[in-house]
Every structure is written in structure tokens, then in C-alpha cells.
């Protein structure tokens, strides 16, 4: 290693190779992934989330919810993801194409939230989520700072939390979610992965590889349409 130039070229080459292989390689495969157009209902999937949900994702990111929650459901034969009812199919890259900051997460202190709003038989509603965030629980941190405890002026606010028991605010006061809490909840309610893409079906008839490698199924490519 006497020769400085060769040494630095080797270093640079190594890092460039890993970048090229991993990042450009995946980009080549997934970069052009388009929404899937379903002729049956003339809609393309995934739906582009409304702006408020997109903002909510940033709230989710900035509060670090991903330090306890994942948003990726694995194949039926991997872990108990699907048995726990977190989703009826594995997550695929197409699910995330409209997300500004996908929150795949790396830790499961709490349940996976990929398909929170599409859960069967019962998905939580806005009231449940507001209450969980406001009060927390023995297992869950509270995010009281996303809410405002204020005196009721005139009429009670339409979005004020309906709380009971020990959580009931003092008479004449109400707990109102801030804009951040509202967008976070809108985001959580937009988490729905029920639509089945060709590549997300684990059966051999599916055109894509079963492992979540989905270089855009041919039908999707042909008919895919940007909204």
C-alpha cells in the first residue's frame, strides 16, 4: 500500500460499488414502480393519501412512534404477523410509493400499524386513537402535549375529546386536539393495505416472486397510471 493513489482509488471504488449495487440496483427495480390500475373498479392503488394524512406521517416520524411500532407485514410463513391480524397479505414496495417518509420501523414493542384502519373485525376509530394518544396507558406513552386543555368559550368544540371517568376535564373546560394531533390521527386512519396487488399474493400463480421481490408485475406496468 505504498501507492497512495491506488489506495484511495480502492477505497472509493469499494464505497461506490456498494452504493451502486444496493441503492442503484434497487432503484432500477423499484424506482419506476407505478400505482396499480384495477380495471374492476376503475381505481388505481395505492390511493394517494390526503394532505392531512401526509402531514400526519411527519408528526409520526418526529415523535418517533417507529421506535416501538413497525409498518411492514411479513409473509404468512414468517413470524405471526398475519396470524395476529396485522394484515391479510405481506407488505410490498408499491404500498409505500406515495409516502413521504415510509416508517418501516425496526422494533415491535407495540403492534404493527401497517393496516391499522383496515383491521378486521374492528379497526380503531378516531375517538379510540385520540384517547390513546391523550391519556396513554400502562403500556403506552401519553402525548398530552398534542392536546389543549382550555376553557369552553360559547359552544363546546366539535372536536373536543369525549372523556369519561378520571380523565374527564374540570367543569367548564374541554380537551381539544391540536392540529398536529388531528393530522396524526388522520394519518393513522389512512393506514390501510387491504388491496391485493398481483405481487402481494403468495400463491404460485402470482407473476411476481414470492419473497417480496416485485419488479413491477407486467400487468401493473402496462396499465399503471400515475394519478
Amino acid at each position, binding site marked *: *500500500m505504498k501507492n497512495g493513489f491506488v*489506495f484511495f482509488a*480502492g*477505497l*472509493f471504488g*469499494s*464505497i461506490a*460499488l*456498494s*452504493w451502486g*449495487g*444496493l*441503492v442503484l*440496483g*434497487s*432503484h432500477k427495480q*423499484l*424506482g419506476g*414502480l407505478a400505482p396499480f390500475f384495477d380495471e374492476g373498479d376503475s381505481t388505481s392503488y395505492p390511493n394517494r393519501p390526503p394532505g392531512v394524512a401526509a402531514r400526519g406521517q411527519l408528526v409520526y*416520524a*418526529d*415523535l*418517533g412512534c*417507529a*421506535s416501538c411500532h413497525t409498518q*411492514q407485514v*411479513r*409473509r404468512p410463513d*414468517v*413470524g*405471526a404477523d398475519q396470524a*395476529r391480524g396485522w394484515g391479510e397479505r*405481506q*407488505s410490498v*414496495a408499491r*404500498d*409505500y*410509493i406515495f409516502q413521504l*417518509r*415510509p416508517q*418501516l*420501523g*425496526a*422494533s*415491535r414493542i*407495540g403492534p404493527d400499524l401497517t393496516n391499522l384502519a383496515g383491521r378486521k373485525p374492528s379497526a380503531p376509530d378516531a375517538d379510540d386513537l385520540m384517547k390513546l394518544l391523550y391519556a*396513554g396507558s*400502562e*403500556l403506552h*406513552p*401519553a*402525548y*398530552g*402535549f398534542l392536546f389543549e386543555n382550555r376553557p369552553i368559550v360559547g359552544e363546546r368544540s366539535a372536536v373536543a375529546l369525549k372523556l369519561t371517568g378520571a380523565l374527564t376535564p374540570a367543569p367548564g373546560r374541554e380537551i381539544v386536539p391540536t392540529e398536529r394531533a388531528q393530522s396524526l390521527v388522520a394519518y393513522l386512519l389512512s393506514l390501510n393495505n387491504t388491496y391485493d396487488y398481483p405481487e402481494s399474493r403468495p400463491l404460485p400463480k402470482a407473476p411476481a*416472486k414470492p*419473497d*417480496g*421481490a*416485485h*419488479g413491477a408485475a407486467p400487468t401493473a406496468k402496462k396499465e399503471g397510471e400515475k394519478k
Partner: protein
Amino acid sequence: MTPASSNAEVTAVDTQARWPLLLLLGGAIKWLVIAGVLSLIASIQLHSPAFMSHWPAFTPGRTAAMAETAFVYGWAFNAGLGLALWILGRLGGEPLRALNWVVVGTFAWNIGLTLGLVGIALGDATSFSLLQLPGYVQPAMLVAYGAIAVAGILAWSGRRTDSTFASHWYAVAALFLFPWLLSAAQATLIWTPVRGVLQAVVAGWYAQGVWSLCLAPLALAVAYYVVPKVTGRALPAYEFAPLGFWSLIVIGAWTGARHLTGGPVPAWLPTLAIAACSLLLFHTSIVLLNLRGAIGGAGNSVAFIAWGLLAYTAGGLLDAITSFRSIASFTQFTHLVTAQQQLAIYGGVSMILFGGIYFALPRLTGRPWASAGFVSAHRVTLLIGLALLLVSLAAAGWVQANDLNHKDVTFAAMAADTRPWLLGASGAQLILLTANLLLAVNFCRSVCACCCCCAESAPVGSPFRPAATMEAHAS
């Protein structure tokens, strides 16, 4: 070879670079303590989520991000850079040049980091693991790193002898590669973000790069320098060292995608990572082969480094084993992954860096550590804390993995099952914090003693400072 406690080995490189390097090392130790406090809070929040979480700045997701950032960018990078510059200067045989840049860079790096942590507390974290620093401080960090690294590169290119040594390669690689790594990640995650899950791919590449191309090389540069110096013997099987080096540099960054197993990314990514993890064992074995003299070696620095090497080897082995799909699908998303990370970054890299600091400081200040008792107390406490941390996290992760894989176990039951172990992990964080406070106090006392000594313009009769040797060197 002189024993580590003697000052006779102080060279012109040491005296001249003393203050800039002490600044880096002092910064490192300061962040180590801060990271310890934050890790303790984050750890408590895992079993008692209500703890401090009514303050937005200390909501659980943010404390975890702050703890990780302070530890990696504050402690590990400052310490690694300081030691790498010192080693490159000594190996080069010439006093370090561009030290003004080092000082400016160190201030910029640490101010940037402080602002970054405040940013995370206010909610500006990027949410990418190991790259949580808000986008607005990242360019400053890049420039600061460059300013610090210049001195190392100059010392390398201006060295007296043509030949190079393993410490050279590892240190220069870390100095040279981090700016590329950070700028590529910044460009594609922050400034013009790639779409969808590609972000996870880039983030995984970056996080692994920080480990394989920066932190591990910085630590290995220290180990390769200190071990032969202290043992006084040539390294066994040294002819394989270049292979060991290049295998880490070429293969290392490919191993990151193992964390994406089963996820919504192309399946070949984890497959490549699994192969890379196994190939990397080649690197790990060469390092162990070369540096095995450290194990059982005499002296405090080498004792730290020996533990670090064992942890480094164990970490590499566990990475390879747990990367296989059947095992990864079990360990994924649990505290077992955290345990492995702690083994690598605390047990491996940090232990070696501690050893390096214990070796370097007496040579930088020209006097022994203020308290030898604190040095051994630090080592013992640290080892106890680390063992408790790893065992608790691994046990918590094991329980968690079993519970997660049984669909009928509720999260409440899982929390109850893991709680005792997570309490153990919090206890361990407290012990580690205490241990590192011992280091901080000892460091401050040693540096103050050095200051006083300098102010008194080196009294001839000083019992600590063999003035004659110092002057002979400071030509």
C-alpha cells in the same frame, strides 16, 4: 518498549498536538456521559413509558434518537477521530499539520451536534436510524468532519517512511470514507429524497457504512497501534492484515440489508447481506489472529482492547448467524437486535477506544493518569455494566421474540414478561453511567494537572515529568 506508565515515550508529535487532541477526547467523554443519561431515560421508558414523557422533548421516540446520536456522533466519532489523528501523527513521525483546522472542525462538529440534539428534542429528527440529526445541521457536520480529517490525511501523505502499517489503512479509510457516505445519504434522503422503500435501502446502507467503514476502522486503527506497542512483539500472521482490511472495506457495507429480511424490498438485498455477513467472518478472523496477543496481555489499555476484540469477534459471528432468514425472522424487531448493536458498538468499538484513550492520554499530557484506582474501577464497573446490559437485553429479546411469534400473547402480557429484564437493562445503564463518570472525573483531573504543570513551566524536580526527556524530544 516502555511500560504504559512511563513518560519516556512522549514525542514531539504528542506535545505539539496536545491541546487539539485533548479537545477531541474531552468532547468525546462529555458526550459519553450525556449519552449515558439519555440512554438511561430511554431504557426506563421501555418498561415505564410514562417516565418523563409528558415533556415533548423527552417523549420516548425522541429520547431513543437523542441517545443513539449522542453516543455515535458525540462519543464514538470524537474519540475515534482524536485517536486516529494521534496515531497517524505518530506513525508519520512528523508533528501534525493543519491543527488549526482540527480545532475549528472540533468546535463546529460539537456545536453542530448540540444543535442537532436540540433539533431532535424539538421534533426535527429525520427518523432514519443512525442518521437522526436534522437535515439543517448535516452539511455543517460534513464540513466539520472534513476539517478534522485534513490533518490525518496530511500526516499520512507527509509520512517519513514509504511503507505503511495496518493502523494507517484503517484510520485513513475512516477519515476518507465518512464524507462520501454522509453526502450520498444526505443527497438521497434529505435533499432530494428517493421514493418509498428506497429510503429504507439507502438508510440501511448508510447505517451499515457508519459502522463498517468508519467506527470499526477507527477502533481497529487503535487496536493495531496499541497492541504491538504494549506487548512489544510483532503481530502474528501480519501478512494477512491487508486482506483483513480490504475484506472489511469491500464487503462491510453490503451487510446492512440483513435488517430488511422479509420486508417490502427486493429479496436479493437480504440475500446479498447474508452472504456478505458470512464472508466478513474472514475479516474478523484475521483481526483476531493478528491481535490475539492482546488477550491476556498486561496493562490496562490492552485489557480494554482485549475485551473489545472479543466483543468485536462475537459480534461478527452473531451478525452472520442471525442474518440467516430462519433466524432473522425470529430475532427481527426485538431487543435481541438492540443487544447485538450494543455488543458491537459498546462492547467492541467503545472498549477499544477506551483502551486507546488510556494509552494515549499519559503520552499527550506527559504525566500518568491522575488516579490509577479510578482506572481499574472504571474497567471493572464497565465490564459489570456491559455484561448486565447484554444479558438483560438478550433475555428480554428472547422473551419478546417468543411472545411475538405466538399470536395469542397480548402486548400487555409481553410487556409483563419482558419487564424484569428491561429493569435489568436500566440498572445496567445506571452502572455504565457511573463507570463513565469515573472516567470523566479522572480525565478532568489528569488534564487539569497537566495545565497546572504547563503553567508552572515544568519544574525540573517534578516527580511526574522527566523534564530532560521531554526537552530532548521537543526539538
